[in-house]
């Protein structure tokens, strides 16, 4: 799977690049392109996203603080008002009624009833004289005559003129709080009016104030004892809160505290002139939910963008580098083809020159020997020496052989120019194989040529055909071991195609190399002088002739190269 995705340049190693190898390192080129583009594109994106992230987070947090603070302020006013209202009510009673009136149990019962109806929250009412003894009491308990003189609250009310207690159980065995006011009488005398306020009423007051984000408002005293139950922290009234009591501040404050792994946003305000602190507790997680949603969107967007950017960057880099690679391959190929054909042309010219120069002296030897032979043939005095005749015969045979070679070389050199002419495949194959006759003999390689008789002469480029066949023959010879065989077969495939196959008994080509044998510079003989160009040039030559070439191979048995040539080069395959 991964191998299929791998672009062509990935494993490329240019053996021919030498000193300029770095220039042709396509993989690092690809890495550079990807890294640079990714860096340039992603850096601003990530930077902006982080900035956006920080800003929105800060805004969300500020919003929470602001809302909590505002809530606490509002609630404080409500609670303070609630307490003040009741205190003022008591003040009003003591000013409005004479002492003998309020100390009259009947009259006091009427007042309590009026309070219950008018303001609510009161559960009893008592009048205590300056000695601390409760003179009159109306309410559910029998507390008349109780002595409060030794208690702290009594001392405080004597000093300050009023008193608001913590929530406590007291005689009543239900949580409640007490409000007391002192009223001076003529002389140094005074009395105290004392009322109990239901906690129910207090609780209701707080629970009416709904808090966004699932928080709760509670009241604690300065020791951190809950004055109202706390649903948020799962505690009831008169238990201690799970967080530390916030320090005194004249105004509303908001702080964060982590309790049992949760971060709580705690807004609080001290209720002046009371032992109470109003606290709003909110779960930060819950408050941040809307922002978490935004955060998910931001991160999701970032992730998607990064993914697409990377995909495009990698895709583009691969595409471009691959194109450069292909262009480079073509360039190198063209360069080497030119070099190769120049080389071939030079060799051809040189061979022709040599052959031509040899031809003349050869002709002379031939004629001289012929003349000697003529003497033996025509003049009776030499006729009877068969040994001399034999010697001359052998000279002539040798010269004929030399002549055949020079003729072949000359005819090869002659066909360097490209032109279509009628060719006879049998003759070309014969010529080409003639070049390796000697090598075949030395190495005991059996060369078989088998050409079908029904192959007509057809228009093609003789020079190119010779080169193709010579390349394939040389290629085969470089792989055939001593005693092996090369079988060259030409057969007519159909009306339009003729196939020439070169089957050797070499070691064969592994399947993974089989599809690469026609690639330029692909060679397994680089250490033995192979350039890796022969087959690729052959491939191109065959293509130029409108033909096809393919390789078949079986490991250990040998390889077969099959060239299919059109009988009519003008007609392209349908």
């Amino acid at each position, binding site marked *: 799977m991964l191998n299929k995705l791998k672009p062509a340049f990935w494993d490329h190693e240019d053996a021919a690049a030498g000193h300029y190898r770095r220039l042709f390192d396509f993989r690092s080129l690809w890495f550079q392109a990807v890294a640079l583009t990714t860096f340039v594109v992603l850096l601003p994106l990530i930077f902006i996203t982080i900035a956006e992230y920080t800003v929105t987070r800060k805004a969300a947090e500020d919003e929470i603080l602001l809302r909590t603070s505002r809530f606490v302020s509002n609630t404080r006013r409500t609670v303070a008002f609630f307490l003040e209202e009741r205190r003022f009510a008591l003040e009003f009673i003591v000013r409005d009624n004479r002492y003998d009136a309020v100390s009259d149990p009947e009259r006091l019962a009427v007042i309590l009833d009026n309070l219950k109806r008018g303001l609510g929250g009161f559960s009893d009412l008592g009048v205590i004289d300056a000695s601390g003894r409760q003179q009159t009491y109306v309410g559910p308990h029998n507390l008349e005559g109780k002595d409060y003189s030794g208690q702290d609250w009594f001392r405080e009310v004597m000093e300050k003129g009023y008193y608001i207690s913590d929530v406590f159980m007291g005689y009543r065995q239900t949580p409640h709080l007490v409000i007391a006011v002192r009223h001076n009488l003529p002389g140094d005398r005074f009395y105290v009016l004392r009322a109990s306020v239901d906690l129910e009423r207090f609780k209701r007051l707080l629970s009416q104030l709904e808090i966004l984000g699932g928080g709760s408002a509670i009241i604690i005293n300065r020791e951190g004892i809950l004055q109202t139950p706390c649903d948020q922290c799962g505690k009831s009234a008169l238990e201690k809160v799970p967080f530390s009591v916030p320090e005194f501040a004249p105004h509303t404050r908001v702080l964060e505290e982590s309790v049992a792994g949760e971060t709580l946003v705690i807004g609080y305000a001290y209720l002046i002139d009371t032992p109470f602190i109003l606290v709003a507790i909110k779960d930060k997680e819950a408050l941040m939910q809307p922002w978490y949603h935004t955060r998910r969107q931001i991160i999701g967007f970032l992730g998607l963008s990064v993914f697409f950017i990377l995909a495009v960057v990698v895709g583009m880099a691969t595409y471009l580098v691959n194109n450069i690679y292909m262009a480079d391959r073509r360039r190198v190929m063209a360069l080497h083809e030119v070099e190769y054909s120049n080389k071939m042309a030079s060799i051809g010219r040189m061979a022709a020159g040599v052959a031509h120069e040899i031809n*003349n002296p050869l002709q002379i030897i031939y004629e001289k020997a012929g*003349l000697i032979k003529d003497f033996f043939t025509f003049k009776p005095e030499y006729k009877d020496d068969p040994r001399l005749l034999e010697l001359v015969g052998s000279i002539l045979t040798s010269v004929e052989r030399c002549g055949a070679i020079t003729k072949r070389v000359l005819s090869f050199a002659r066909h360097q120019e490209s032109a279509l002419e009628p060719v006879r495949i049998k003759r070309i194959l014969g010529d080409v194989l003639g070049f390796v006759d000697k090598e075949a003999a030395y190495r005991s390689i059996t060369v078989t040529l088998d050409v079908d008789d029904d192959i007509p002469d057809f228009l093609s480029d003789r020079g190119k055909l010779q080169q193709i066949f010579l390349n394939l023959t040389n290629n085969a010879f470089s792989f055939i071991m001593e005693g092996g065989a090369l079988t060259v077969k030409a057969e007519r495939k159909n009306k339009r195609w003729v196939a020439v196959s070169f089957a050797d008994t070499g070691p064969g080509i592994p399947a993974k190399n089989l599809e690469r044998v026609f690639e330029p510079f692909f060679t397994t003989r680089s250490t033995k002088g192979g350039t890796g160009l022969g087959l690729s040039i052959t491939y191109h030559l065959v293509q130029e002739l409108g033909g096809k070439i393919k390789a078949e191979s079986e490991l250990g048995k040998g390889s077969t190269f099959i060239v299919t040539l059109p009988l009519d080069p003008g007609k392209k395959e349908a």
Partner: protein
Amino acid sequence: MNVLLVDDEVEFVTTLAERLEIRGMTVRTAGDGEAGLAMVADDPPDFMVLDLMMPGIGGLETLKRVKASHPDIPVILLTGRGSTKEGIEGMRLGAFDYMMKPIDIDQLLKKLEEAAELKKD
């Protein structure tokens, strides 16, 4: 049979002449085109064997001039180069045939016979 051999390779041309004489022909030789043309003008031969690669006016030019003055003399061209191009060019100019060096005397004799046959007709 009267044959004129024109070739700049003296060793070759004299030996070939001798071999033809052994076979009963009258042979004259010339070392270049001008000498050959002079001999043709002096005493036209029955056949002419002409090398294409020669110093001076060269084989093709010599052939042109011979054909201009004596169109009925069959000329057999010899070419030392691999190219058939000059040979074909020569045929176009009226040569009887062309042979590639090194030549075989029997083949040359055969060509001469063919030319003789043609001339008779």
